[in-house]
């Protein structure tokens, strides 16, 4: 059971590390648009101008 004296403070440290990571993600704008990327992934076909769709 003695290991708990190490593990519990360690888990606290871990919580703060994860908190910091999330804070960084938030700060860099990762959560600003929660809907757009879900749609955008379906649409990146990058069609070349002039090429007729339907052609292989």
């Amino acid at each position, binding site marked *: 059971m003695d290991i708990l004296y190490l593990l*519990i403070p360690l888990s606290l440290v871990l919580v703060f590390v994860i*908190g910091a990571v999330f804070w960084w993600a938030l700060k860099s704008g990762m959560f600003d648009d929660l809907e*757009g990327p879900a749609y955008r992934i*379906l649409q990146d076909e990058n069609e070349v*101008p002039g090429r007729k769709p339907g052609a292989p």
Partner: protein
Amino acid sequence: MTVTTTCYHCGLPVGADGVYRALVDGESHPVCCPGCQAVAEAIGANGLSSYYRTRTAFAPRGPERPADQAAALVIYDRPEVQAAFVQRIGENERETMLILEGITCAACVWLNEQHLSRLPGMLSVDINYATRRARVRWDASRIELSQILWQVETIGYRAWPATSAAVERARKRETRAALWRLFVAGFGMMQVMMYALPGYLAQDGTMTDDIQVLMRLASLVLTVPVVLFSAAPFFRGAWRDLRRRRLGMDVPVALGIAVAFAASVIATFTRAGEVYYDSVTMFVFFLLCARYLEMRARQHAAARIEYLDKALPLGAHRLLEFGRRMDAEEVPAIALKPGDFVLVRAGETFPADGRIVQGDTEADESLLTGESTPMRKGQGDTVVGAALNCSSPVVVRVEHVGEDTRVSSIRRMVEAASMQRPGIAAAADRVAGWLVGTVLLVAAVAALVWWHVDPSRAIAVAVAVLVVSCPCALSLATPAAMTVAVGLLARRGVVVVKAHAIEALADATHVVFDKTGTLTEGQPGVVAVHPRPGIEIDDALALAAALERTSEHPIGMALVEAAAGATAIEAVDVRNQPGAGVEAYVDGIRHRLGTCAFVTEIAGLLPPAPAPENGATRVWLGREGAWLAASDLIDRLRPDAVATVRRLREEGRRVLIWSGDAGDAVAAVARRLDVDGYAAALLPEHKLARMVALQRDGAVVAMVGDGVNDAPVLAQAQLSIAMGSGAVVSQANADVVLLSGRLTGLLDAFALAARTRRVVYENLAWAAAYNLAALPLAAAGLVSPWLAGLGMGASSLLVVLNALRIAFPRSRSPLRSSRRRTTEIVPAPTRA
């Protein structure tokens, strides 16, 4: 069901003749107008046709007069105009936020992004789907802002710079702060729960005191940020309520958190008594979830209100030395002062209130008056800012600018009116206040009683009462359902601006339409032609169209439209006489089209003809010495007006028309739609009086309005609905905006509101039953704080899950069927 052809691009019905067709990817598709044709072909030519395959809603109608607008946008390139909204990065790099109008689905976002990012000199384009805003960065040495704005218009959308960058930044800060609070509370909750669990599972004596203290200290470390940071809004809210001497939802919440936390801290350090860290963090997390969802919905709605920004134009042509020279100088509209002379060209918007000093024209003041027919304006007449100059250039002496203009004063009036609306929301607040008071009282009494029975449990019982009967599920019940409903409707082009709208929609007993622009298209159409014996109708129309070919007057455009398909006749030397008609030479003979008097001057006595029916407007056509035909025009009904009114009446609502227009026209529309009642020639104050009288009899009135003159009455109605194509000011203040401009959106809104209200009632019934059962149990000491927290959490979760059910209707509803509309279009047989 009859098969109607709809425009490939915008989904509006195509005229029976189907003259416009767009060639996309080698296939010909029917479109409704040259604007849509140009847009569809531009999209195809740029290799962006995948837009048509992936979109989930139709696009807005294409631009009407492209050439004028490109020139008008140049004002945005001026440094002093850009100063307000463009950020300079380095020497040539510029960045700004654009508001995109016309975005209806994700494919629109993709289309705009692809199109803009291919422009030379464009550095980055970043479009936010939720807020319809684009952050663009460009190289000012290679491309101008006006070109970017114009490129957006060529594909059928509209962009203008978001001048309120500060508001934008504040909104972003709010979102990020809310997410951060939510995360801190959620992560704190999970971790604290892990520290708390052994305490619940351990048998007596199996966990040493040291370990228990360590666990409690760890929980304390994690709970401190949750209480001090995440729960701060609740403490601030409670403090604000207390200072105003009233009881809000935040008071028991803040009190519960504070008492439980304080008791836990004392227990931790004295090593005696219970700790409630897990209850506290869980409680805060669930409450923040609800707040976050509510905030998201609110921000979606607020993004729409910036439509107001474009009511007054940004630039003006100031005449420096009017009277001697006509040299115009481009200036920002904010730089105008009373006494300045400005030149307003045809098709432009008046930048300020003023008086015409030179020229004759017609002004479309529908934004302010709701009157769709342009008003004749001559020298000495006043014009109002935000009105559209329809026919010819005029010089205006500026009298009022900016906040002093009429459009601004009307906006302020509406703001004031909307503050004192009859509130169903206010009633809900009062009930909640009583409930909170009861909870506080019960908690205090329970604590007092237990202090005498068993002092060691007094705090636990008080906390349990506060937490378990916190009206959390009750306060979540409504917003959770509303958020789901608002999101669903937004995807159907129905924007709910104010939260109470859904409730009012479900309760509405009367639906009142303002005729202009809501039930009708606001554009006249030809309904009857009475030619002189011996002349074919088609020939008469072709001749009329020839005279009006270059006209931008609604009547002229209607005649041209009616003659589409007939052999084109050429008219030369076309001369427009405002207020009377148009004159031109066909085959060397003078022809006139217009009012009776105007045509009589050359054609001689006009023959007797049947009086125009249904309040139609009659125009005459004649040539030197002989009259040729009379055409009747009438403001046409929207294609879905009849079906919508019938459906509303089937659902047991009374449908009324209150119009400011003349009696005949209104009576005709009322007859064709079979409404329950109508009134014509009403002034705004008459409408207001009628509204108040109806409401006194207990009616819940939904007003569908358009022009700004309706704004006071819209504000008085329990529910105000504005059509997306209507005046911008009424949109900004309406409870609901139909962006699609389709009346069937109303049916969607009513159907969804009824379903939402049922779910809200279920939620409220559940929350009330839960609180009624839990309160006595907690007061009796049978519920420990952790169980209270769990019960509260479970009841909230149940309420949210029930709310999500709104998105999945059991039966096939109008909402469902409209979702599949894009695939249901049946191409009309092509005419040979």
